[in-house]
């Protein structure tokens, strides 16, 4: 370590009082640790840097010990956690980079910009790896659409995601949206990006090579988003104006940055590159140096800024969007500048790589910060807390729900079906996804509305499949089970398309971890994710943690969201979700049990969130995935659709409504082995609805048996139009399929139409 020749703290500047330390979200013991690392009191810039790097968002202080338990290795995993995005080997030299990230807090304050910049950030995480972004998926949570606030938030978030992705030209190909009053003031906006690259072009966020120039490129730095990472690591309080901490996005600049970055990488002009995302210049510089065991020396006076009078503190912590930090090959700086100039982008050399292990920040001649990189990035204090389940939640699991499982008449069963189809969490998402360009780049073989999106992979025969899933209600009632289900459902969705699930990315949306009950949920959920990933052989490639999703009315449901990516060997073997044609046989794979706990049925029809969520047998889940992949490869299925929210009846309705040529009639008949409500609307796991050519049914049955799965033939697909008929024991639902379709399609538009004044 070099000697500090000029102690920055000697200068007349903001005094570091206990109040200033507290404002930076640092505890007394954390401050003492900082003093120990530096051997002196920090400057205000240094305090800002530690505050950002040791926030939950960057430093994972409450989650790191838990995340370490997750499986992060697998034969096809090329890049695991710790980089800008994870990468899998998709064969023939092709890689798939992907990651999910949250933008919950900004979206709660300013939904349009919050969501737009969430998409921008995740795109940059992927293209800094050298991958061209080919798809976005999103996972959204809002309060009830009966609330004007929730409608306002959904309108803004959907437009923000759409305007950003549409303009950059990356298709939004799938996602999920769930509504529950617990998300009223704290919506969740998780965006996942998938990119493709040639593996020999993989670039990492490294600062190697002493003397190599460090360059800031892209948009100029302004005062927006200062301390966004710290903001994201605290509860959302009411009344305070958080808008200055929300960034503003410009997708046009992003598109230029994307093309320029890929050109720089293609021409091998870079040593390393990283998005200036959360905690901006600070985190990108420090993390790049940390990965290489090097140091970085920068002069903020050389940083292109968009407003005058910015302090070093502001420049270090600004989260202005569409900026990158890169380390170039020294003899190629002019070429780098020329490429960026061609794309009408700024580039400035702001410093160089050193070997002293320090993150040194100058303002002209003055050193304003000098921090050892290793403890800054890797010694963020971590906390293992004692988690204790909230006894009130444990009590909810014990509720006797048997009285709610009866459907006394056919009319009642019909009304329940229609009410569920009208539930915003189940209804058609077309109102949302028609605002997203899903077909740009001409890779989309299966887009929104499918169990998984399927994209062609470069110029190969292969395809990429992706799905994103989470069920906060299950995790609330039973965190470990709920998290296991999220992983298995994502895998099942990918496998229904015919692809083999390969790896996950996860976004852990939880409340304030300082509370024992939330910490319990977090630790149990992470354990559940790890167990399911091990059982399915799908390691964790990276992800994001979003804690402090809490308002004065309490925490959100714990909502781990799982993004699963799979590969299908021949894209021509992909399997659609909806029924295809007349006389195809409908089969149900898997066991239906007396399980209505935590279901959409209970929530919508009986206004109850209670009971035990459905059991999930991980070994069976893995066998079901194998069965689906093998069946698709043998071309046995005409369609495959996961049974999830709303149970088998909803799966049957969705597959019939979305059928080829228009909504089709079906005739289904099953024996009653449990209560009518559980049979129709229960959410027993590891079930898939198939349709097949009658000649293939025996082969499918044999394949089920070989995989230790139960199956039954339950009906046939009819012509377009006509009646949707489903008999279970003595209960029969029989009505025109177009009646179902209308309810399903109108549910979101009719709630969102009363939107006057929101489009300004």
């Amino acid at each position: 370590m070099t000697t500090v020749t000029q102690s920055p703290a000697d200068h007349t500047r903001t005094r570091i009082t206990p109040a200033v330390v507290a404002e930076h979200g640092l505890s007394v013991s954390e401050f003492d640790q900082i003093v120990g690392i530096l051997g002196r009191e920090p400057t205000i810039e240094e305090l800002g840097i530690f505050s950002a790097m040791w926030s939950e968002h960057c430093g994972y202080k409450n989650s790191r010990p838990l995340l370490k338990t997750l499986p992060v290795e697998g034969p096809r995993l090329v890049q695991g956690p710790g980089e800008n995005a994870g990468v899998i080997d998709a064969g023939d030299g092709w890689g798939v980079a992907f990651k999910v990230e949250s933008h919950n807090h900004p979206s709660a304050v300013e939904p349009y910009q919050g969501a737009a910049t969430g998409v921008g950030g995740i795109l940059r995480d992927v293209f800094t790896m050298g991958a061209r972004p080919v798809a976005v998926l999103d996972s959204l949570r809002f309060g009830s659409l009966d609330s004007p606030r929730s409608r306002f938030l959904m309108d803004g978030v959907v437009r923000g995601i759409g305007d950003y992705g549409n303009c950059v030209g990356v298709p939004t190909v799938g996602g999920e949206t769930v509504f529950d009053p617990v998300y009223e003031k704290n919506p969740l906006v998780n965006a996942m990006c998938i990119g493709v690259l040639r593996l020999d072009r993989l670039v990492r966020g490294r600062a190697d090579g002493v003397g190599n120039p460090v360059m800031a490129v892209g948009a100029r730095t302004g005062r927006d988003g200062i301390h966004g990472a710290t903001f994201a690591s605290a509860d959302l309080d009411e009344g305070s104006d958080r808008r200055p901490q929300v960034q503003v996005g410009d997708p046009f600049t992003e598109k230029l940055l994307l093309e320029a970055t890929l050109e720089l990488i293609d021409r091998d002009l870079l040593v390393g590159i990283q998005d200036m995302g959360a905690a901006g210049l600070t985190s990108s510089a420090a993390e790049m140096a940390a990965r290489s065991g090097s140091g970085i020396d920068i002069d903020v006076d050389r940083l292109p800024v968009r407003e005058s009078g910015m302090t070093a503190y502001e420049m270090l912590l600004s989260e202005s969007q569409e900026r990158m930090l890169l380390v170039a090959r020294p003899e190629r700086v002019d070429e780098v500048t020329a490429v960026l100039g061609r794309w009408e982008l700024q580039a400035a050399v702001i410093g160089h790589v050193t070997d002293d292990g320090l993150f040194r920040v100058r303002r002209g001649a003055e050193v304003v910060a000098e921090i050892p990189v290793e403890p800054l990035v890797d010694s963020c204090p971590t906390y293992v807390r004692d988690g204790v389940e909230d006894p009130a939640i444990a009590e909810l699991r014990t509720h006797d729900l048997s009285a709610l499982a009866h459907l006394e008449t056919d009319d009642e069963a019909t009304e329940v079906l229609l009410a569920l189809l009208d539930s915003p969490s189940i209804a058609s998402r077309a109102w949302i996804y028609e605002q997203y360009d899903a077909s740009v780049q001409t890779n989309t073989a299966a887009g929104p509305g499918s169990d998984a999106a399927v994209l062609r992979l470069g110029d190969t025969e292969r395809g990429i499949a992706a799905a994103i899933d989470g069920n906060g209600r299950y995790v609330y009632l039973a965190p470990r089970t709920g998290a296991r289900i999220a992983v298995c459902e994502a895998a099942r969705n990918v496998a229904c398309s015919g692809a083999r699930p390969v790896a996950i990315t996860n976004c852990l949306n939880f409340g304030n971890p300082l509370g024992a009950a939330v910490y319990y949920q977090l630790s149990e959920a992470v354990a559940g994710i790890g167990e399911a990933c091990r059982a399915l052989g799908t390691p964790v490639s990276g992800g994001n943690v979003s804690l402090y999703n809490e308002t004065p009315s309490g925490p959100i449901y714990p909502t781990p969201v799982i993004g699963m990516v799979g590969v299908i060997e021949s894209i021509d073997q992909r399997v659609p979700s909806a029924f295809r044609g007349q006389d195809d046989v409908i089969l149900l794979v898997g066991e239906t049990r007396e399980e209505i706990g935590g279901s959409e049925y209970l929530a919508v029809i009986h206004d109850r969130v209670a009971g035990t969520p459905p059991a999930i047998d991980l070994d069976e889940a893995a066998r079901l995935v194998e069965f689906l992949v093998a069946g698709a490869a043998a071309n046995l299925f005409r369609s495959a659709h996961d049974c999830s929210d709303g149970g088998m009846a909803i799966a049957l309705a969705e597959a019939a409504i979305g059928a080829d040529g228009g909504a089709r009639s079906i005739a289904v008949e099953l024996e009653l082995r449990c209560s009518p409500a559980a049979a129709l609307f229960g959410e027993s796991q590891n079930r898939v609805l198939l349709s097949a050519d009658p000649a293939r049914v025996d082969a499918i049955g044999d394949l089920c048996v070989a995989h230790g799965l139960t199956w039954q033939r339950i009906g046939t697909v009819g012509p377009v139009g006509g009646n949707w008929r489903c008999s279970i024991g003595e209960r029969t639902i029989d009505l025109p399929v177009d009646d179902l379709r209308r309810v399903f399609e109108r549910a979101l538009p009719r709630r969102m139409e009363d939107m006057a004044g929101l489009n300004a």
Partner: protein
Amino acid sequence: MMRVGIVRFPGSNCDADCARAVREGLGQEALFLWHKTHSLEGADVVLLPGGFSYGDHLRAGAIARFSPIMQEVVDFARAGGPVIGICNGFQILCEAHLLPGALIRNRGIRFRHRDVHLRVERTDTVFTRACCGGQVLRMPIAHGEGQFVADVETLAELEADGRVVFRYVDESGCAAASANPNGSQNDIAGICNGAGNVVGLMPHPERAVSDLLGCKDGLPLFRSLLAAVPEAVAS
């Protein structure tokens, strides 16, 4: 071999898709033309692709029309060369006054991506020669500013001269309010200039060229280009 020159503006994002359609769907040559240059590099056809040139700042297409290459495109069009504008390309052609009218915010404000049906109204343009009159084609739209409007005289002139090339219709080929996705006057989805060598349309034929993409109805439009420049195809 026919050479299709695809102009790349900053913010174009359907350039690669158009090139793929020309190469894989048509088996012809596609080359990219940088907006700052003054050469069409011997292209037989010029295609202005979709996207958000200059981020749609000011108005869609309003800045791109001032790019250096646009002067060459205008000269090429005036000399009878085939010029196609798709989505943002259509907007640029209108801004450059190669086509009349304007494309404004969709009725209903929102960006819309969905499949639409188009009826081919005219089969003697460079982009419809391989179609049958009245043929109904399915392909996606993806735009926020696709509502075609023109003043009364211009609209009457377009109709009288038969310069409406594509109209939004329902699956059976009939006009229907629900089939018009953006509120365009007279259900107009695409138009041409008087000579029929400049065609602009909002839907994306380059996204409907293979079974994998769910539809091949865009292919006849691209095939029409072969008939427009037979000498290039033959050479």
